[in-house]
């Protein structure tokens, strides 16, 4: 944990700024100032001020693109667009380093070929979390989304397949970057355990890595 992480957390202390941040990260792709301002009901100049503070804190990144889709004279100025920064913010007081521990454990699991016992542990943990989730069981699609949201997965219906839930945040991002088969396999089993634990009947978790999403999708369709 460094000064920059503390600054990032500090930038979210302002409730309005936090609402803007939550709006931007909840969207697929990029968000313009006007969209963010409308979403929280403030003027664009105020939204721009807060959005740029979030950029300074490293929580959002920007790009410039002409929204008209046209080029050349008369096509207008490029708009400033915001999206979540890739950077990960960790704040532990006092400092703890679970990340290094996780990477070392992953290395050891891979070397010893202990993936199957990791999968079993992940399934058991998923079931425990599912059982502890304060939702009605058996759970419906809305209830499942609520549980997944609470666990940080940021679920959203797939645009092309509304029966499929995409998970827009990978809770194990840096581990998944360095040990994809291990971390993603663990995550898949964790989610399978969770579905069993909340009795999400008819829902199936499977591996379907696409773009920047988490590698697991959850489908209503049992044929998957």
């Amino acid at each position, binding site marked *: 944990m460094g000064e920059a992480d503390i600054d990032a957390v500090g930038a979210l202390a302002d409730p309005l700024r936090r609402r803007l941040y939550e709006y931007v990260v909840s969207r697929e792709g990029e968000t313009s100032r006007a969209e963010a301002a409308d979403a929280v009901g403030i003027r664009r100049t105020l939204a721009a001020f807060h959005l740029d503070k979030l950029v300074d804190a490293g929580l959002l990144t920007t790009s410039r693109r002409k929204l008209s889709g046209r080029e050349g004279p008369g096509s207008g100025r490029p708009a400033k667009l915001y999206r979540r920064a890739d950077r990960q913010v960790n704040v532990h007081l006092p400092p703890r380093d679970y990340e290094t521990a996780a990477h070392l454990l992953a290395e050891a699991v891979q070397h010893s070929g202990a993936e199957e016992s990791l999968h079993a542990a992940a399934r058991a943990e998923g079931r425990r979390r599912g059982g502890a989730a304060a939702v009605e069981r058996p759970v419906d699609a809305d209830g499942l989304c609520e549980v997944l949201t609470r666990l940080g997965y940021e679920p959203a219906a797939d645009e092309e397949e509304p029966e499929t839930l995409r998970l827009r945040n990978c809770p194990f991002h840096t581990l998944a970057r360095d040990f994809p088969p291990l971390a993603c396999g663990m995550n898949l089993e964790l989610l399978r355990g969770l579905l069993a634990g909340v009795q999400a009947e008819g829902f199936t978790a499977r591996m379907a*890595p696409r773009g920047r999403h988490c590698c697991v999708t959850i489908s209503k369709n049992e044929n998957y």
Partner: protein
Amino acid sequence: MSGYHLAQLNVGTLKAPQGSPEVAEFFALLDPINALADASPGFVWRYRCEGSNDATGERFFGDDLLINFSVWESVETLWEFTYRSDHLDLLRRREWMVPLAERFLVLWWVPAGHIPTLTEARERLDLIRAEGPTEQAFDFRTRFPAPREETRPQDPRP
């Protein structure tokens, strides 16, 4: 556009011989996964045994060691195929392969257009096993950029 392509080799030992029911699913998945690789952005070349669509008949690295040997336009395109496609599901499943204590994957740069040989691949694997990741033999976690083209006539120095 870089004048270099990325070569990759990985080796693996099956838990049961080819033809056994324990590994039948692995062999059944090879054709579709290879087709996915061939159609992936950045794919350049992959090793095939003569008269075959895959490399499973090749035992250059030992009687038990299967190989996967290919060339891609960049580390990123190989990464995308390896870990951000349906190929990931194959890698996640550990029921077919014996865990290897030694390094089983190596990446290195080759001039674009050069098709690397099995002997070259063995040298690179030996190198990363002996010295860890270097510019000559590296892995996804410790990457090295493609060599710079110092002597290109169409690229005048200031």
